[in-house]
């Protein structure tokens, strides 16, 4: 069996004394799109941040491409190819669109900058139009595109996305998800997608994990989970 790209083994973590993650196990294979769904406060965002070393795992191990990254400092993970688009997008609002993309390219070779920038502008033409504007004046959807574009500038091999659809109009959500599919299929970027919008996420994903109260309770293929009546009742009622 081929080694998983990302393997999370018995990870406990949290901010402060109370643990939000109580022994999480999951793995992601190269080239997959994996969805992680669960209700508010289940620990999904904490898991993504723990993968990036903030907070650090109190117990357990995180392996990325065969390397133990449990103790690797946050700022070194980008160079390993592990890149996150965090919850709330967190674009640098007082910097221009171009500067935000330059920040994304911080760790990559300067020779790649031009072609990478053209690629991001091709994916999101609106960013090219707004390159000189401050990030803070963009609409929510544009900010999400900028956050994804910034992440792509660092040439990720595994892209972690935390609620990219949050607060966006359905049309924009569809555009974002289509782009994720394109990034995955066209460029071979592996994707871990955290979503409350379970229907869209599971439709897009090869596999999915369900998280409840800091542990993984269910796993299966995207379509399998979508068909599961428990999942339908808990996460999809009124959705889709």
């Amino acid at each position, binding site marked *: 069996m081929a080694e998983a790209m990302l393997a999370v083994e018995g990870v406990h973590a949290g901010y402060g004394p109370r643990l939000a993650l109580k022994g999480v196990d999951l793995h992601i294979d190269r080239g997959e799109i994996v969805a992680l769904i669960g209700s508010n406060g289940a620990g999904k965002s904490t898991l993504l941040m723990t993968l990036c070393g903030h907070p650090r795992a109190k117990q357990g191990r995180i392996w990325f491409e065969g390397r133990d990254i449990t103790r690797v400092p*946050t*700022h070194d993970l980008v160079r390993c190819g592990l890149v996150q688009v965090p919850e709330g997008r967190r674009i640098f609002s007082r910097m221009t669109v171009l500067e935000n993309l330059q920040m994304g390219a911080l760790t990559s070779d300067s020779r790649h900058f031009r072609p990478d920038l053209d690629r991001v502008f091709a994916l999101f033409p609106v960013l090219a139009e707004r390159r000189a504007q401050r990030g803070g004046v963009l609409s929510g959807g544009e900010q999400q595109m900028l956050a994804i574009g910034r992440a792509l500038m660092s040439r990720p091999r595994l892209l972690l996305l935390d609620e990219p659809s949050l607060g966006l109009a359905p049309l924009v959500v569809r555009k974002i998800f289509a782009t994720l599919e394109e990034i995955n299929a066209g460029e071979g970027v592996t994707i871990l997608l955290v979503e409350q919008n379970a229907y869209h996420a599971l439709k897009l994903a090869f596999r999915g994990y369900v998280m409840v109260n800091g542990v993984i309770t269910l796993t299966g293929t995207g379509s399998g989970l979508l068909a599961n009546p428990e999942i339908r009742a808990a996460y999809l009622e009124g959705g889709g």
Partner: protein
Amino acid sequence: MIDLYRETAIFLQQLVNGITIGATYGLIAIGYTMVYGIIGMINFAHGEIYMIGAFVAVMTYVVMGMLGVQSVPLALLAMLGVGMVVTAAYGWTVERIAYRPLRRSFRLAPLISAIGMSIALQNYVQITQGARVKPLPPVLPGGIHFLEETGFGVKITWLQIFIWTVTVALMIVFTWVVARTALGRQQRACEQDQLMAALVGVNVDRIISLTFVMGAVLAAVAGLIVTLQYGVVDFHIGFLAGVKAFTAAVLGGIGSLPGAMLGGLLIGLIETFWAAYFSGAYKDVATFGILVLVLLFRPTGLLGRPETEKV
């Protein structure tokens, strides 16, 4: 009857002097404002860094004398260079030992540590260098005189021209670094969102260290300038200069680089003109009085932006 020519000459002379002293406040204020911008803390030991810069300038001068260096430009260059490097080392060390260990501590901890650091550095210089003032002979005498027919005469010394040139050059370089370089982008990213900066690969600790180093370099130049201008230093000069530069930073809008320059210039001009036209004894009262007024009507300072986007 008022002699208008004479009055103009006096006014111009005060302007020249005010700009010169304002330049030093501006240079020190940038250190306060940059550090505040990036870690939200007032580095109360920054005045002491400036004082150490002044001492290093004097010591470099003495060493140059012992080495038999006669050339004034060479001596000035050495004072500038050595001052920047040694003072930067102090700035870096202070952050490393007094602030970084407290990064995750409660908000007031680094502030208290900064006050402690300030006292420690003062005493350290007092013990190692003695409490008496250290004199420096005029390195760059002479200047340009004009409007002498008014009976007052305006004098711009070569030294003042040197001070202005160095200050303007440094401010251009630093503004360019912050606005246009990868280092400046990383600093601004850390100011806005340290966690996100780390997520794109910024080594936040390293950028904070570099910010302290940059502030210390500018304080070193201010120390050199004041030493050359007044010809004396002692271990105590850091306190008042530090408070005034801090005032300048707040006046201009703390966190704003152009604000610090503007604030420094204004404080220099206010105290010079107040001393010339009203009373030398109350010049500091005037300075701080204007600070109070500005803060009452514009709490974010002249060029500061309102705190709205802190998450």
